[in-house]
């Protein structure tokens, strides 16, 4: 049985690797709208089916697996498992009677059907992961989640219009009790003034004010006023897509740079821009969004540090 586990692990790894690599896409097949979890469940179901077929003649397969040197053909395609099994079967024909050989050949046919379906599911799954941005290798999605919200004065804000109206939008996440966040508010205001000339803006999102909590909005306004920050601060519903996005942030302040198409310009900056070198890092993304060669804003906080 150890062999089984070894083989299945090897295959699972091949699948996982294949899901990450960019395989030539097959003609688009319309899958019904499924969530990622449902997709995962469907894939598991197919795997279970596959194990079911193998289990039917477990003893015979085990006899073959004992001879196997565990090498799986490296090119991943829709018949990798059945090809592997077929090779193994032909190589060690002498271990089986004709009847047994026939039974296993039939099993391989069944497996081929299952794994073709599995292959398609994996392809779609990989695509879904890429689109949703929950791929663990890179948790930053490509576009900023769309939202309908309000600024702290109660004016409606629509994310599409907001981003489209600016050449670059610097989105800063903060909350009232976060002292490094509050400390950088005046610098962010200065950045906003500089960006205005370039057609950009700084936007604050205070996670305490999500869902329009009036007490928190009052407090946030007071803090902004005391720090002399006049740029727009907005909130949206915490159970929205953007709300979930905000809820995943691990450290505050976190700052995203978004271009006019709503695209996020790389990894977010974690930590205040008032720290030495941080503004330089932010500027790289800002002028990438602006499509300019020139650094739009001088870092006055100090020289970059290693």
């Amino acid at each position: 049985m150890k062999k089984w586990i070894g083989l299945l692990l090897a295959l699972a790894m091949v699948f996982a690797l294949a899901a990450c690599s960019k395989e030539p896409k097959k003609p688009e097949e319309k899958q019904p709208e499924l969530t990622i979890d449902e997709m995962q469940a469907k894939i598991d179901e197919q795997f279970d089916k596959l194990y079911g077929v193998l289990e039917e003649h477990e003893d015979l397969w085990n006899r073959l697996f004992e001879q196997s040197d565990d090498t799986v053909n490296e090119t991943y395609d829709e018949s990798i498992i059945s090809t592997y099994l077929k090779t193994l079967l032909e190589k060690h024909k002498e271990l089986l009677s004709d009847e047994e050989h026939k039974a296993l050949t039939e099993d391989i046919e069944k497996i081929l059907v299952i794994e073709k379906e599995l292959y398609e599911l994996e392809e779609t799954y990989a695509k879904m992961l890429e689109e949703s941005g929950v791929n663990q290798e890179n948790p930053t999605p490509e576009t900023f989640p769309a939202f309908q919200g309000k600024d702290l004065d109660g004016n409606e804000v629509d994310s599409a219009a907001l981003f489209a109206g600016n050449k670059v939008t610097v989105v800063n996440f903060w909350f009232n009790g976060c002292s490094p966040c509050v400390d950088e508010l005046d610098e962010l205001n200065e950045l906003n003034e500089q960006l205005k000339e370039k057609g950009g803006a700084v936007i604050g999102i205070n996670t305490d004010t999500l869902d329009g909590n009036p007490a928190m909005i009052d407090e946030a306004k007071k803090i902004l006023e005391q720090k002399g920050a006049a740029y727009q601060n907005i909130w949206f519903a915490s159970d929205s897509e953007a709300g979930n996005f905000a809820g995943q942030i691990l450290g505050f302040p976190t700052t995203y740079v978004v271009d006019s198409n709503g695209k996020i310009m790389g990894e977010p900056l974690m930590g205040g821009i008032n720290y030495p070198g941080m503004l330089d890092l932010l500027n790289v993304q800002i002028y990438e969004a602006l499509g300019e060669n020139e650094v739009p804003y001088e870092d006055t906080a100090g020289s970059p540090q290693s």
Partner: protein
Amino acid sequence: MNGISRILARFRGWIQAVAFLLTNIHLPNFFKGQIYRGTGKTVCVPGLNCYSCPGAAGACPIGAFQAVMGSSKFRFSYYITGILILLGVLLGRFICGFLCPFGWFQELLHKIPTPKLSTRRLKPLRYLKYAVLLVMVVLLPALITNDLGMGNPFFCKYLCPQGVLEGAIPLALVNNGIRAALGKLFTWKLGILITVAVLSVLFYRPFCKWLCPLGAFYALFNRVSLLQMQVDKNKCVSCGKCARACKMDVDVTKHPNHTECIRCGMCVKACPTGAICYRYGFGTEKETKMENNQMTNGGLSE
């Protein structure tokens, strides 16, 4: 009573493991690189366990205390202090010995077979932890503030090795945003963590003895805690095995409720006559002693 005490002492390692798991129950978060943020985080766990540990079920009492002390809205953290006093009265430093994940971590390291060093001569260092509690946890967060009256959690920010072990390292491993944000502070605290880890191999629980502000707080409650050590003077043969077995450098026969006693029960296990046990509940030591005397005398006269 001695039977139960011996069982507790014998299975302490397992109790510590279970306590660690319960304190960090959200295990899948370790792989997701996320932090649990549900209602569990509105209360704090008894031991020193970082809020930012992906698995953490509750907040860290020391972290939460500083967060409130440093906030511009509040002057003092009554809620956390209340919880800590309650825990102190209910269990005292039993929490250090049985429930604290960082204590367990140090003990596991101490199991590495190397020559061990005694901390008997380093007793003055014990008082350092009270300074850490007073200065880094209470005073600095409350007094060093920005123009809006907001302070920093100085202990978490500059000293706590548990934050690096449970928070920074696991999060940085799976989250590249965090990884990118690691800087000088991380290097400094990683240095502290490594130092504590190395010292833990050589000494028994160096962090608990010398630095831990939470241990310092609970230490103050050992004397009034409902859980105490009790030495039956009639059974005691003054062999001194308990004092030699104690890795916290306490002589339980002289000071059964010493501030350094973490109720680990090594003396209970070492006592050849079964004279030492845990006692839980109200009542003063004197009364119990007298009861014991009467009982033993009664037994003898029969």
